[in-house]
């Protein structure tokens, strides 16, 4: 997956072959992981003392964050629109899922696409006016969205629906068809993984397709794109809507995995985390979303392990160090390294 970059429309398609094999192996490995972990982890004994179930749960979170970051990447990385507010769509997705399950007894798997569609519509409608703004102004608008959504969720008059400040507790799903071979954590992992595979596959096709090319054209040469007959407002709003849909799907998965939603889960720091994951993973890189997910899931834990006195100070140092060492994100660094290795081989 690491080489399946689609950063530029002109990227040579010729090297698709080996990549496809690499991706297949990577994905197969991910699918085999829950079965491998219980075998491998005890062998590693002293090195990694993680328990398989817990690790599977953490990896599920990584996958969920990766989907959200991929969504942000679509609008920020490929379309060049800055968003500080994707936590809002994560929240909307999560609440849509939770409300559907809580009030309508909707099956959990159905809530995922519904959340995506809801966020698509909300994102598109938000984008239509807001994307006329640019740069810092768009940052303010999206920041306002991230701030307003948790407040709206608490709003008195819709408390019957959202549970107000108390949030909604939902039931964690068991594996379907009474399958006993895997436990609930493993099932959630598979669910997230399958959804992620679909979403990543769709994203790759989107970026390589007509809309993707239009998005990139707008990012790089907005005036030229307009002259070429691309409708800027519609394409930008579509990109924003699709991006929101991705984040909403992640939100729904997140709600199901955590089995609880509350306004406090979706503070502005969630939006900032997504942005951090995006930049540190790699802008305009499909695989970057995965590295970004890993970063925002694990680095706070590392910071906490280093210092209880001021874990945020450590986290901040990590952030600054990360942009020093890899200004183009982890994906960019890996690409450079691969290019060097290829050059060395020749």
């Amino acid at each position, binding site marked *: 997956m690491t080489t399946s970059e689609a950063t530029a429309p002109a990227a040579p398609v010729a090297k698709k072959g080996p990549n496809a094999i690499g991706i297949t192996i990577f994905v197969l490995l991910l699918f085999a992981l829950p079965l491998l972990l219980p075998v491998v982890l005890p062998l590693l004994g002293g090195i990694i003392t993680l328990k398989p179930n817990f690790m599977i749960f953490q990896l599920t979170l990584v996958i969920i964050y990766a989907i959200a970051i991929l969504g942000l990447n679509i609008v920020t990385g490929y379309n060049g629109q800055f968003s500080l507010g994707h936590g809002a769509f994560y929240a909307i997705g999560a609440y849509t899922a939770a409300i559907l399950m809580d009030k309508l007894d909707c099956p959990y798997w159905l809530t995922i696409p519904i959340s995506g569609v809801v966020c698509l519509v909300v994102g598109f409608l938000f984008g239509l006016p807001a994307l006329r703004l640019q740069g810092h102004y768009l940052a303010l608008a999206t920041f306002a969205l991230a*701030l307003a959504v948790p*407040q709206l969720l608490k709003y008195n008059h819709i408390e019957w629906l959202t549970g107000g400040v108390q949030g909604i507790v939902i039931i964690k799903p068991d594996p379907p068809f009474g399958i006993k071979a895997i436990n609930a954590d493993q099932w959630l992992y598979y669910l997230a993984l399958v959804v992620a595979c679909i979403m990543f596959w769709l994203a790759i096709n989107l970026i390589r397709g007509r809309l993707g090319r239009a998005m990139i054209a707008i990012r790089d040469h907005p005036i030229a794109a307009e002259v070429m007959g691309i409708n800027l407002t519609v394409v930008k709003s579509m990109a924003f809507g699709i991006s929101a849909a991705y984040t909403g799907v992640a939100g729904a998965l997140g709600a199901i995995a955590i089995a609880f939603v509350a306004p406090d889960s979706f503070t502005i720091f969630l939006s900032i985390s997504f942005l951090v994951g*995006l*930049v540190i993973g790699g802008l305009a890189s499909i695989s970057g979303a995965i590295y970004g997910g890993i970063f925002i899931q694990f680095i706070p834990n590392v910071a906490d392990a280093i210092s209880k006195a001021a874990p945020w100070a450590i986290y901040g140092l990590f952030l*600054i160090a990360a942009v020093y060492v890899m200004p183009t994100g982890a994906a960019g660094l890996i690409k450079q390294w691969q290019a060097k290795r290829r050059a060395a081989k020749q």
Partner: protein
Amino acid sequence: MEAFLHQIFSGLAAGGIYASVALALVMIYTATHHINFAQGEMAMFATFIGWALIEWGGLNFWVAFLLTIVIAFCGGFAIERIVLRPLHDKPVLSIIIAFIGLLVIFNALAGWIFGFTIKAFPSPFPTSPPFGNRFLNWHEIGTVGITVVVLLLLFAFFRLTPLGLAMRAAAFNPESARLVGIRVGLMLALGWGLAAAIGSVAGMLVAHVVYLDPNMMAGILLYGFASALLGGIDNPGGAVVGGFIVGVAENVLGAYVIGTELKLSVALVLIIGVLLVKPAGLFGRRIVTRV
């Protein structure tokens, strides 16, 4: 009626606070064309230094005030040189991540060094009500006064001095600026220093009103940001007016129109609405370029 007037004046007082923070944002924007998300936390940290100088060092208010401004200037200068200099040719979003890093670092350090209990920050102004006026106190008048002074200084600096002109030039077009001999790197660092200094003034004025703690600036920065954008991010005067508009609008909306629960959301929606109509802010200049 009296309550209404009271809300207006209280809004103006809050607006003075937003305006002073907005000025620091205008400063950094004019000098570097970035909006520094860590500006609020840097101001908070500088205010803690001022507090420590007064409480631990036993200094007179004005001595501590001036000393803090100098320390903040040096701190801002140093941060640009050490943290941001290596990033100057990196993508904008990388720089924004560095800002976020600075934000969390200052927030955590302040909590670690100074604790989280709120601290009273002294005011240099008399506590008695001025001219028998019940609506404003001396500190609020003083805040507005100092903000206006800072505004005038900023205006004069940017419009009338060669250094101010050079700073703007360096931010607008670094390459051309080098070609006339401007040391662009130095200008950026000076801009950071000045913005940090203005931020520290804002912080010390704000702290008396909202009490000093590590999260003091979290909410205020957003209002300052909104004020600056509403008034025009490259226009110090506009930013100050923007601050007053936001302060008053927020109070009036909260008290009479939509209630306190949603006032921030509605205020932000209104600001964005204004920006859609006037994209460069109420008083900002639209940049026209012939190609």
